[in-house]
């Protein structure tokens, strides 16, 4: 029988983490499938009661999102919708209403699925993770955390405390995905785009600091680096959009699996990147 801990404070939590090496339970949506098939760790640590890790605030040009904040809360939060629309969109597209009422942003990150919907927006928005342990805190860019499918560099004695998303006025972001159906679906391809939009004298837009992140098309989320380079500071003409879309396609390294094919995913990266760029306001 597994031990069970339900800390009420972060201090308590990091001590348990250091001493008992528990398996963490956030929303439970991924963990309980394993429990059903017989998985039992030495100890559980249920994070549900850590109120301090739940909620969204704006501080010093950063959105600070507690790791235990629900997808449903992120999707509907006015601050997220204003400063990180791609993240709100992605959160609204996770699973189903019930899953969004249970699943947390911290859980989505820790689970490290290549198809996790929140991850491409976090990459594109240059989010950082605030990791907490008994020995202190460290802040790590989200794109340095994932080492492979279902694998992260988060240490066993650490937990994700907060997700910090730069909140800058004039930053445009959006998320597009193709799933297996219109609800209860897992992404075949997900693309997040974030950039500052310059429109000198009402003319054709130029994108600055543009970030494009691709989900479900590589072992981890990847940036469409050549596409980002092409875009930087240039006039967003129809021709450029085409070039960028093709470049992004070549930045993807998809595989065939039960949800889709590599060829289709690659082609869809181009379509989604183009559609996102056409939506730029």
């Amino acid at each position, binding site marked *: 029988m597994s031990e069970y801990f339900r800390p009420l404070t972060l201090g308590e939590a990091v001590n348990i983490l250091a001493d008992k090496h528990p398996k963490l339970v956030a929303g439970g949506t991924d963990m309980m499938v394993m429990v059903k098939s*017989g998985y039992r760790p030495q100890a559980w640590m249920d994070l549900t009661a850590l109120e301090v890790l739940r909620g969204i605030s704006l501080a010093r040009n950063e959105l600070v999102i507690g790791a235990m904040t629900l997808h449903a809360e992120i999707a509907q939060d006015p601050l997220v919708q204003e400063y990180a629309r791609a993240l709100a969109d992605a959160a609204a597209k996770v699973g189903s209403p019930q899953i969004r009422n249970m699943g947390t942003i911290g859980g989505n990150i820790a689970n490290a699925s290549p198809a996790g919907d929140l991850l491409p927006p976090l990459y594109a928005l240059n989010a950082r993770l605030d990791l907490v342990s008994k020995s202190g805190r460290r802040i790590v860019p989200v794109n340095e955390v994932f080492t492979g499918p279902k694998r992260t560099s988060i240490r066993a004695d650490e937990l994700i405390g907060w997700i910090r998303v730069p909140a800058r006025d004039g930053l445009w972001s959006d998320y597009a995905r*193709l799933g*297996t*159906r*219109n*609800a*209860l*679906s*897992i992404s075949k391809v997900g693309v997040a785009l974030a950039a500052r939009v310059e429109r000198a004298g009402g003319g054709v837009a130029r994108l600055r600091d543009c970030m494009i992140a691709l989900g479900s098309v590589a072992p981890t989320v990847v940036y469409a680096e050549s596409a980002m380079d092409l875009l930087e500071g240039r006039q967003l003409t129809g021709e450029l959009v085409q070039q960028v879309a093709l470049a992004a396609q070549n930045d993807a390294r998809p595989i065939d699996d*039960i*949800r*889709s*094919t590599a*060829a*289709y995913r690659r*082609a*869809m990266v181009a*379509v989604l990147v183009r559609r996102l760029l056409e939506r730029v306001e």
Partner: protein
Amino acid sequence: MAIVGTSVHRNDAWAKARGAAKFTGDIRLPGMVEVAVVRSPHARARILEIDTSRASQINGVLGVFTARDIPGKNLVPLVFQDMPALAMDEVRYHGEAVALVVGDTREAAWAGARAVDVKYRVMDAILDPIKALDKDADKLHGNDNVFRRWTVKKGNVDKALQNAHLVVKGTYHTPYQEHLYLEPQSMVAWWSDEGYIEVHGSMQCPFYVRDAVAAVLGLDLSSVHVIQATTGGGFGGKEDVPSTIAAHAALASFLTGRPARLVLSRDEDILVTSKRHPAVIEYESGFDEQGRLLGVKARYVMDAGAYATLSPIVLWRGTMHAAGPYRVEHVDIEALAVATNKVPCGAYRGFGEPQIHFAFESQMDIAADKLGIDPIEMRLKNALEPGDTTATGQVLKKDVGLVQALNAVREASSWDSRFETPGRKQGTVRRGLGVSAVYYGVGLGAAGQALDRAGAFVQVMYDGSAVFAVGTVEMGQGMVSQLSQVIAQELGVSIERVRALPPDTNLLPDSGPTVASRTTVMSGNAVLNACARIKQQLLEATAGILNEPVDALTIEPGRVTGKNGAATLDEVLHRCFLERRDLASTGWFKSPETTWDEKKGQGSPYMTFAWAANVVEVEVDTETGVVTPIEIWAAHDVGKAINPAQVRGQIIGGSLQGLGYGLMEEIIHKDGLMQNNRLSQYIVPTIGDAPKINAIIIETGFEHGPYGAKGFGEQPLIGIAPALANAVYNATGKRVKTLPITPERLFAALHDDKTVD
């Protein structure tokens, strides 16, 4: 006031809406144990050794049983006697049952199942039905791997095709389809040392379950008492499979002496239960210049899986319908069910018809396009009408509503003003319309005629309430409330006070399976037969009250009226009580005669047909290959709608299953191992995938049907995939001949240089 023909609320819905209906998993018995099944991880392997020692030592495990522990025959009897309850020496598909583990909790049973060590020697598996037909292929069944072969022959096809103005040839591939009833397979069995066993569970065919349990335990049929529990959907998936589930639960109970329950997990259910057969169909149709169908030649190969189960008769139905609902003089159909090392396929709503409908309705569309004829016009030119003869030689009576159905969907969808010539549309997102014509032979037909009879029991109480029981089951389709309507109509009792008892194999005669859209006709007539005797009693009693002859009396809701007066039902029932009249009766019905001459490939296989036409409208995103269904119009000739709201429910629900079949549902194997046996991976339509579906009811009146009704519950599924494929063609000019039309598949068709056609 007529009760039959009105949309009364289902009388079983009240308990279901509050969550009080008792499904098998809700049954709690003292001392009940749980069963888990050890299953093959290989497509084909020799069993070298089953070591149960580690499993037996697990806390809570009460027993581990293999084929050697079976007291009766190791057999689940069906069409052939080829499928064991537990594999003996060889496993023949991924997921085949090898051993049973009984535990005092579900967790203990499953832990035990994981701890049974089975040593296998993996063998080469036969996975492709076409390759299985090769002369030198390894043999799983007989000397050719063919479980069954059927033919339809008429006229001289080769000559007809030679002389045709246009010959259309195509090869069509259709996928597995999983029923995905929401309630997984489940059974509870309770052996009594008095020498009988009681079995409660989720099932369509209590009498099949009885036969299987009797076989494995070596009991008399009368010692196996099967009672159906509330059943959470079937769609064919609970036709033969529950026999195996019950055999396992019964063995566990018999061998441990405790009530035993087996509830499959969803993963297990998708992995091991029957599916719609995948098929490869080669089809040739010849037409004259005016679009008249001259001849049809087809070869229909079904992947039947590891054991025959129902494949021979699924194939038979497919073969009977293979020429389409059209007049055609020259026909040559050959159909084969082929053995492979994959899950045994069986019954699924439509029963061999959806595959072949996809082929001939695609053919019809291709021909219309090539001849420049409107697709609905094309079908109307060839549609079977009253008095016509089908491809098998059956002469149709007056209840043929195909032309009405085609005209109805044509008008409802504003087809004439909206249909545009295929392939001319521009833009990224394109709309398209597609049509299909459908027919469905009602009942088991000539191949199952021996089973095509049904029994009923009806009793009216002296307080005006009534109970009834029939040998067919309610599984969600609405049988109980339709039969309650019949009883209320015939006997004047209030429908709210009619209660259904569950089917019970010892109290009711073998009524055959609840399949083949046969229940309305078979059980409906059996109930009418029982009601007729009770009605006679009520009328005779009333005659005494009103002093009028019996033939002057009419039963109405709550009363019996004569020429000069009326008696309330209460008065009549009181009189019956005083006169010691019998207000309980059994009823019986045999289907009208059907014929099939196998040598000639001709006959009149069905008592009648239901008819339908569908129009599907889609929107295709040509950049992503995503097909969004916009709206469906579905017109069905049901003879007579006993409950129009429920008929609509069948049409809408069946259509959406058909849409899933056409658009997204498929089972993926790798090296013979199923890859997507989880609900997160086997994709069915959600509410977000459902278009608006318009149900249109056509009533032509079937001479042998209760009030003219005929069965049609399977029909709504059948024609949606072909109408969808035709709509995709209309929108894009690309003909997809492989289902489902996934974005990946359509994208490849739209963007590859080579055409799919």
